[in-house]
């Protein structure tokens, strides 16, 4: 299971929206954080989020038993550790 956290602020809205639109990914909330969970890897397409450079590279707030295996101009990929 892959799981990571994204702080709910206006700039991160695109990341959260792309995750919520992914049928393999569940989005729920822990306080002001969105918790993204999936059985397999979670892959967020950078262009689909529409977020700018600085926001993209600081969008991940926490990793639960998971590891970032890709975080570049194309995608963010989080997998089970």
């Amino acid at each position, binding site marked *: 299971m892959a*799981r*990571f*956290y994204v*702080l*709910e*602020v*206006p*700039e991160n*809205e695109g990341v959260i929206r792309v995750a919520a639109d992914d049928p393999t990914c569940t989005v729920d909330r*822990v*306080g*002001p*954080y969105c918790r993204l969970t999936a059985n397999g890897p979670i892959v967020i397409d950078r262009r689909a989020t529409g977020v*700018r450079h*600085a*926001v993209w590279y*600081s969008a*991940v*707030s*926490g*990793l*639960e038993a998971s*590891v*970032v295996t890709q975080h570049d101009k194309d995608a963010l990929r989080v997998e089970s550790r």
Partner: protein
Amino acid sequence: MSETTEPAAPKAVHRVRGVDHAAFPTFDPVGTVRFYRDVLKFPVVHSICAAGWGPEKHPDFIHFFFDIGNGDRLAFFYYFGWQPAGDQSAPGDAWARLPHETPEFFKNSRHIALNVSDEEDLLEYRSRLDESEWPVEMQVMHETIESIYTHDPNGYMLEITRQLRPVTLQEDLDAALTIEALCDVAAGEDPSMDKLLTRKAELIVEKAGDWENENPAWRESVEV
């Protein structure tokens, strides 16, 4: 005595009130005055002409101050007869030179950032710099601020920045959790972003729910 006085309210724990002055050495007072007074139009607000000071070998110096708004000041020391140290072709500034292979990100990590209130003012300073010998090197939209950057005649990086929106309550929580996680992993072996984010997730699970109960107003920042 019938006279009663209200007990004084206890003073806050956090009592400082911003920057009084930040001070840097200069070997180029002419360029420094042109840059800050003539290009940026920061008023000169104070100066001290000191013939030596304290220790026997202290050189004569001028200590001069520019107003950077809000009553805060940026100050320079010019020491007569004092020469810059180190290899002047190496990355660095008037205060110090670093090894030749030092990357730009590290050199520029030490800088001063001045605040302006809106885009109009940011662009005003951009045009003042662009018409000078020290044009803007970068204009960057960060997470919640937009900034312009240049280096002053002494090699110090100057940033001028505007906030894109106010900082939210949840960002204060996030900062507190980041710093707690950072201190935990930096005290251990081989600190890394991976370790920090793993520790931070534990702190989110432990604390974010209670925080929300105590700070329900945070939602106003994300509700349209």
